[in-house]
């Protein structure tokens, strides 16, 4: 879909989701989507398999699943949303990086502060005992 957004100088940005195809456009695009689909199916199958598998040490399952999920999100971003590291995608990548930062702050911050609060708050049974 390179006919969109190309300016006369050849140096240009790409809208997120647009893909720069050279040569046989449709066949090349189809190859990208098929590769993305295959990778995503593989990662999803691995996630469902490792969730209840004796192959992974039980306390490490959550970490393994999160790693697989992040990998699959990367596959979706590259093969379906066509976010690349090319110079025509700088703005898209920077916006994504900022979004990821905010998501990380909200998730990690919430979990941290709530775990801390719950650690320092006496439980209901303790409160009952203190009232006696």
């Amino acid at each position, binding site marked *: *879909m390179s006919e*969109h*957004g190309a*300016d*006369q*100088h050849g*140096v*240009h*940005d*790409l*809208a*997120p*989701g*647009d893909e720069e*195809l050279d040569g046989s*456009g*449709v066949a090349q*695009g*189809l190859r990208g*989507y098929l590769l*993305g*689909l295959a990778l*995503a*199916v593989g990662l*999803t199958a691995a*996630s*469902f398999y490792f*969730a*209840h598998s004796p192959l992974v040490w039980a306390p490490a*399952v*959550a970490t393994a*699943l*999160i790693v*697989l*999920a992040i990998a*699959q*999100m990367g596959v*979706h*971003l590259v093969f*379906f*949303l066509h976010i690349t590291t090319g*110079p*025509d995608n*700088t*703005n*898209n990548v920077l*916006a*994504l990086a*900022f*979004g990821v930062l*905010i*998501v990380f702050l*909200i*998730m990690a*911050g*919430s*979990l941290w502060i*709530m775990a801390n609060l719950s650690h320092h708050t006496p439980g209901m049974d303790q409160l009952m005992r203190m009232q006696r």
Partner: protein
Amino acid sequence: MTAAVSGGDPHRIGHSQGHGGAASGRGEGGPAPNRIVVGYGFWLFLLSDIVMFSGFFAAYAVLAGQTAGGPTGRQIFDLNTVALETACLLASSFTCGLAILAVGARMKLKFYAAMATTFVFGAVFLGLELHEFAGLIARGDGPQRSAFLSAFFALVGCHGLHVTAGLLWLLTMMAQVFAKGFRRDVLNRMLCFSLFWHALDIIWVALFTVVYLIGGAA
């Protein structure tokens, strides 16, 4: 000292002389084309939507253990249904990509076929999710049962609402291509729709991992 620097603008905004800077985005050559403005703006909306979802995810992660004597995730989640939902959404993401390829090649019939397939997969996903919700509520495990179930229904329901909106949008896009053809503004809307649909699949990846697989194991 070159003329550009003495002019006070080291980036020479608006004065692209083809000086070979690989990085663009400094306003060279005037305002960006309409498609980039539309696509980038929608990309920012999607990222802020994902930030909103992260709030629901954080609430779920904090409240996942607060079952108030009610059922835990392990007791109510049916991973076979979730696997089927995941397959449907992934397949619909793929066919949405095929629709974009059909748009690029201006092939109307293939576009309709790909969009209709996307709609069917999305509708099946939504049906499975509603069936799961209805079963939980019928057993008295609705959102009012415990903090865990409140967070669960809020997070998964919010994603379901997005899918519903996406399905309506999908039908709108088919109608617009039918009525207006592959016009430039219709193409821009298709770009936004495909971004939206793929982003929903990305959120679902996080959702089935955090809610169903990790939450179901705890």
